[in-house]
């Protein structure tokens, strides 16, 4: 794969993955605190 494509892919996938991980873990953490 060419460098440009790889860089774009890593950037896009990375951003989406981080956004997903951050938002879901924050939600679950908030729910846990709410129940406690």
């Amino acid at each position, binding site marked *: *794969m060419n460098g440009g494509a790889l860089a774009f892919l890593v950037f896009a996938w990375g951003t989406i993955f981080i956004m997903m991980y951050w938002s879901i873990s924050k*939600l679950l953490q908030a729910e846990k605190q709410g129940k406690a």
Partner: protein
Amino acid sequence: MEQQRDQWATKLGLILAMAGNAIGLGNFWRFPYQLAKNGGGAFMIPYFIALFFLGIPVMWIEWTIGRYGGRYGHGTLGPMFYLMSRDRLKPRKALWLGIIGGLLGFSVSSLLSSYYYQIIGWSAAYTYYSLTGAYFGQDTYKFFVNYISNTGAVVFFWGLTMVLLGIAVAQGVSKGIERWVKVMMPALYIFAIILVIRALTLGSPVKPEWSAIKGLEYIWTPDFQTLRQHFFKISLAAAGQIFFTLSLGMGIIHNYASYLGPEDDVALSGLATVSLNEFAEVILGGSLAIPIAFAYLGPEKAIKGGVGLAYIALPNVFMNMPAGRIFGAFWFLLLWFAGFTSAIATYNYLVALLEEDIHIDRKKGTWLVFVWLFILGLPIALDKTLLLLTDMDSWVGSYFLVILGFFDVVVGLWLFGVDRFWEELHKGAYIKIPNWFKPIMVYIAPFYMLILLGGNTWDYIRGGVFTLTPGYLEYLVKKQALISTTVQYAKKMVIISRAMILVVIIIGAVEAYMAIKKKYGEEIKKNEVIIRA
């Protein structure tokens, strides 16, 4: 005047339901062919711009409107739009906004379901045909045509899907929908991940220069030259895809959000829904159909696969792939699961309408909706050319969604009040949305939608879609019909489609008027706000 309504039992259940609502055929079927048709890497740039300036803001607006309506016991758009505009406009004028919202919500849920459920039915059929190897060794185009022409098979798999949808919805929100999605959504992700791993390890099974990695390269090489040449067309397609994939402008995000408690978070939850959807679309959906087609069919056929990429091109791949029956079944089951979890939401919108506005028991309402959708879908199931489906989708899928999205901004922000909306959005919120996002929601997102609407209208005027010019009918016959047909037949299908749309719009308007009048009749008569939650 708060009513006792069903609510989501857990935050995880809510998020999975919302993600299931958004993740649909758009992610795995529509996204790859839009991507291929619009230059791969050239498409991804306006796609991400539209996600940021249009998708995320409208998602937050719809969650907020939905939760606000739920506080008054409403899960449908008519009363929601009325409630949010009555302070600024006074009840009598707000009633008009309620009617617009109600007719759009009812029309999109009814009309979209009438053909979308059938496509889900195709996926059920193809899961079965993959397992039995029915299309193996055959011309996959002819096989698809034969299937669509076999009314018995089409109605059976469509009916089966509708019965299962009915069972899920009849059980209610927390005991039905939430339980189903808690099983189906993780299964959907597992199927997709297994398929992606298989797709990216295919190597070069046919020719050394054809590979899945080349497919990824096509998607991810930023192609500014193609984008510059077809800027408007590609940008419109990308914005349209964002609307479709996030299930915006359908009324179903509002409906699911109406089952939240008044202090439940919407800010972080809306963002989580977007990110789960984008994971399914960009990372999983983008790594399946196109890379697989690049490896087995080569770049040219993969790019020209169009709408038929999922049901015509990919079966060619499965029949030549080791363990193709299993992977074929996984692919079509993935499509079925994705479609099903979105379809539950449109189905529930219509059931909520009967339950809340006309006070029909949920179980009875579920089967009444079943009959309604069956009547609406039957002409589509009987049309072997698929022209009825095509015309209806060109109105509902590209037009109504954007109009509804635009009214979301008009009502939720402009009429409800920007500061009041901002306060409402942050009620019980787990995150603080930066203030610089406000102008994006108030000005940029609606401007984007106006451009999108203007672009689509211009395309339709030029193409003769409104006036049914001979050129447009010829185009339908030559380019859109699945099997050869005549101009007269095409015209008949288009007229039937538009008559159906008109009837559904009228019913939606009358229903919304009656529902709002019934509960808020007194304040409309006095033209002053009386009922407060």
